[in-house]
């Protein structure tokens, strides 16, 4: 073992030395060599002068060697003697395991005598009951993947059916409580608004031929190419939101192309899971990869740089306990498309996944805000479920009051060392009170500083306010997700619950320093509304993004390189605050032309299929899809059918992956819709100038 380490150390040392770029020996090497040489010099000088005097010291060496040799021999003998005993002990252990298995399965000891233990354990695994149990669990865990239409379109009766089936265990309890509640007339009906505000929504036909009425999005523009001579630093705050992708999915499934401003490229890219190994010791790790990029027309010497940031995993058992305050929008608009039904279902799912020491409180708002359940421990699960069940919608939307009440509750239930989180479930429309979002945002920001964070979960589509929801999640140091289907709710509240709740790093900012000698210009793809001024990167008061346990953040840059130049392309600096101590930390990682150029030169024609990691290709496909959908100027001449082919190739490699099946489906839907609408990405005039 020792020898193995020595060999490894020596080889690694020799390999790492190869990467040093100076043609001079290191200072440390020179200094130690000079010292060694001088002491050798004085010794040999002494030696020459006083050879006779030093005879004794010289004879010391053979003696030391003799000692060492005898120690080695003794060790060898001891090992040789103990070996057989050890082996015997090993066999005995094997036997006792065999005994145990025999005992468990009721097989007579005789029968298994002589069979290797491994084979026996396999035999044990194939005992029918065990297999049945695990397969039943598998069947339960399996996500529906086929027939996207069927599984993603939700109609009211469908929801009710599923509900009845899935929660049958707790249903009887709920029914009893629910019925009692109904008899008592305590189903929460919002009171009429102050000053008799009218109901927010009348009519059901969207105006101006739009797919959905009153949907609010904001166009944050498209990042331009920046010359490194003007600005070699690119700084942005991380974003782990995925809302944009799910919203677009909703549009496409309903047979509409999404409005361009609903498409945020980074949220498309970040929707997918990438195989970045999670760091073991540190909070983050950066993965960089680059390759030539062929996309659209007129692209020459264009490269795509992918930066992947992976946060450490927190195992579910190690998640901090949580104090959750739900603020649920029960205004009239939540009745549409059975949004409230979806909210209830999502919450039930979450309640089932929480642990006993977690706590839940619920506030609602319609025309007025109101507390409906104080924080309760999960021991009282039945009560909580009954309360969720009793919600019904109506009235206008006094979001401000609802959020304020939610935060008051969260503050009084605040527990140190817990995750303190307000979870807002809404379609994002606020029409009573100081509806301007700024008033609400100010409150949220202040509370976030005290450690109460906010998750904004969006529901519904018609009359949906994407801008407000995203900003709420952003300012509240939490995150924003959009739930269009029950599958998405499962993704957020079941599969990724730990990541959704436990933030591992706050105010995460990324600064990429491009080397102007190698990179001529660069363009950050997406993150338009996450821009951070370069000089604010080390300003720890400046807001960055929040990253949950196990989350990954991927950013893509398009680069133009100077021809024939070699060296460091970019150094990525990541700065974040520890979620517990709030101490700021910074680290960096570099990528050089040598890391991808040999690959790029060799494989320029087939690079996409053969030379790149699956993750890189997946991120590229997601980004291209988004770029085309948002009609980015830089997608000029790009064909969605090419992207579709790439996506299909990915699916071919991972045929069972539900996310990729869906991606292919969405791209082909969009492709068809674009064809129908006669939108060719080649027509420059339909594309926005940067």
């Amino acid at each position: 073992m020792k020898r193995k380490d020595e060999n490894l150390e020596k080889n690694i040392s020799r390999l790492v030395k190869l990467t040093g770029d100076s043609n001079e020996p290191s200072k440390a090497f020179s200094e130690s060599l000079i010292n060694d040489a001088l002491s050798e010099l004085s010794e040999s000088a002494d030696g020459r002068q006083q050879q006779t005097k030093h005879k004794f010291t010289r004879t010391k060496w053979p003696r030391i060697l003799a000692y060492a040799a005898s120690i080695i021999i003794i060790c060898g003998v001891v090992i040789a003697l103990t070996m057989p005993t050890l082996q015997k002990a090993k066999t005995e252990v094997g036997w006792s395991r065999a005994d145990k298995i025999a005992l468990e399965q009721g097989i007579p000891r005789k029968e298994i005598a002589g069979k290797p233990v491994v084979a026996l354990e396999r035999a044990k695994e194939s005992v029918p009951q065990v297999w049945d149990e695990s397969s039943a669990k598998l069947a339960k865990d399996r996500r529906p993947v086929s027939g996207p239409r069927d599984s993603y379109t939700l109609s009211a009766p469908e929801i009710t059916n599923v509900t009845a089936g899935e929660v049958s265990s707790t249903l009887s309890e709920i029914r009893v409580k629910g019925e009692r509640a109904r008899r008592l007339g305590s189903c929460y009906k919002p009171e009429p608004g102050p000053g008799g505000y009218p109901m927010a929504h009348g009519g059901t036909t969207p105006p101006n031929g739009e797919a959905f009425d009153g949907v609010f999005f904001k166009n944050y523009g498209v990042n331009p190419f920046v010359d490194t001579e003007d600005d070699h630093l690119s700084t942005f705050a991380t974003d782990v939101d995925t809302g944009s992708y799910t919203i677009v999915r909703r549009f496409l499934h309903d047979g509409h192309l999404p409005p361009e401003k609903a498409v945020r490229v980074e949220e498309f890219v970040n929707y997918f899971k990438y195989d970045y190994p999670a760091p073991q010791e540190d909070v983050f790790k950066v993965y960089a990869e680059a390759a030539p990029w062929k996309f659209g027309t007129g692209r020459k010497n264009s490269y795509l740089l992918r930066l992947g940031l992976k946060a450490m995993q927190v195992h579910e058992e190690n998640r901090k306990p949580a104090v959750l305050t739900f603020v649920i929008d029960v205004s009239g608009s939540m009745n549409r498309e059975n949004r409230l039904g979806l909210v209830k279902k999502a919450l039930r799912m979450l309640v089932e996944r929480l642990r006993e020491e977690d706590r839940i409180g619920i506030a609602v708002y319609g025309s007025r805000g109101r507390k409906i359940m104080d924080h309760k421990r999960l021991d009282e699960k039945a009560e909580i479920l009954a309360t969720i069940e009793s919600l019904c919608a109506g009235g206008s939307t006094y979001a401000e009051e609802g959020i304020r009440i939610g935060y008051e509750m969260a503050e009084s239930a605040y527990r140190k060392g817990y995750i303190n989180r307000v979870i807002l479930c809404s379609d994002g429309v606020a029409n009573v009170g100081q509806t301007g979002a700024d008033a609400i945002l100010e409150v949220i920001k202040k509370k976030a500083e005290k450690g109460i964070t906010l998750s904004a979960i969006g529901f519904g589509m018609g009359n949906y306010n994407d801008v407000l929801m995203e900003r709420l999640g952003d300012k509240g140091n939490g995150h924003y997700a959009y739930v269009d289907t029950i599958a998405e709710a499962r993704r957020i509240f079941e599969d990724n619950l730990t990541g959704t709740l436990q933030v591992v790093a706050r105010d995460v900012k990324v600064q990429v320093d491009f080397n102007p000698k190698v990179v001529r210009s660069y363009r950050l793809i997406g993150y338009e509304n996450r821009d951070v001024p370069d000089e604010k990167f080390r300003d720890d008061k400046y807001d960055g993004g929040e990253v949950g346990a196990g989350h990954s953040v991927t950013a893509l840059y398009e680069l133009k390189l100077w021809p024939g130049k070699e060296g460091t392309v970019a150094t990525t600096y990541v700065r974040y605050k520890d979620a517990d101590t709030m101490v700021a930390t910074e680290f960096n990682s570099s990528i050089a032309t040598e890391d991808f150029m040999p690959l790029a030169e060799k494989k320029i024609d087939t690079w996409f299929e053969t030379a790149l990691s699956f993750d890189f290709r997946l991120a590229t496909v997601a980004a291209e899809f988004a770029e085309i959908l948002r009609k980015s100027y830089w997608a000029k001449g790009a064909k969605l059918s090419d992207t579709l082919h790439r996506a299909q190739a990915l699916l071919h490699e991972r045929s069972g992956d539900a996310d990729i099946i869906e991606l292919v489906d969405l791209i082909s839907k969009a492709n068809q819709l674009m064809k129908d609408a006669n939108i060719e990405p080649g027509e420059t005039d339909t594309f926005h100038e940067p």
Partner: protein
Amino acid sequence: MTDELEQRSWAGVAKGDADIWRELISREIPQLYGMFMRRWPNPSLAEELVQKTVFDAVRGCGSYDPSKGSPEEWLFGIARNNIRLEMRKRASRPSVDGDISSYVEAIDSEALPDEVLEQKETAMVVRAALSRLESKEQAVLRAKYIEGLSARDIAGRIGITEKAVHSLLYRARNSLRRELKRMTSLDKQEQKL
């Protein structure tokens, strides 16, 4: 330097005068290193040869004869001799395949052949593998093996204990080995395609 001064310092070399030797070798080590690097672009081999040359010189300082030429010429004569020895050693070795992938598998059981280290591709592969490590690991490997710092110096520089440096180094070496294995196996798959 006047001739007389020069003569005196040359004589000092032959006598083993410590100050003159210090001046001589600190001036010549970079020259020798560059000479070996030009021959075989392999820093660890260059270090080894510089070390051998300097020690040969120190041990044989009595054999330096100022009347035959400058100490620099003498030192470079020893260096050239070491190059000849190294070439002879290489000639007697069986030729090796310069592709690193076949050696990475055995990275912790055998010493990598110098010929493999001298391939341009090897440095590229190592650079790429290194860039995939966490920044802390990269930094500690560079500090230790390129800058040649001791664990104590590194500990002082990044503010952790010496023991932590050792365990960080241990982890970093293993991560690099893992990355190298991963990259070379990818390379093989590509070649098959």
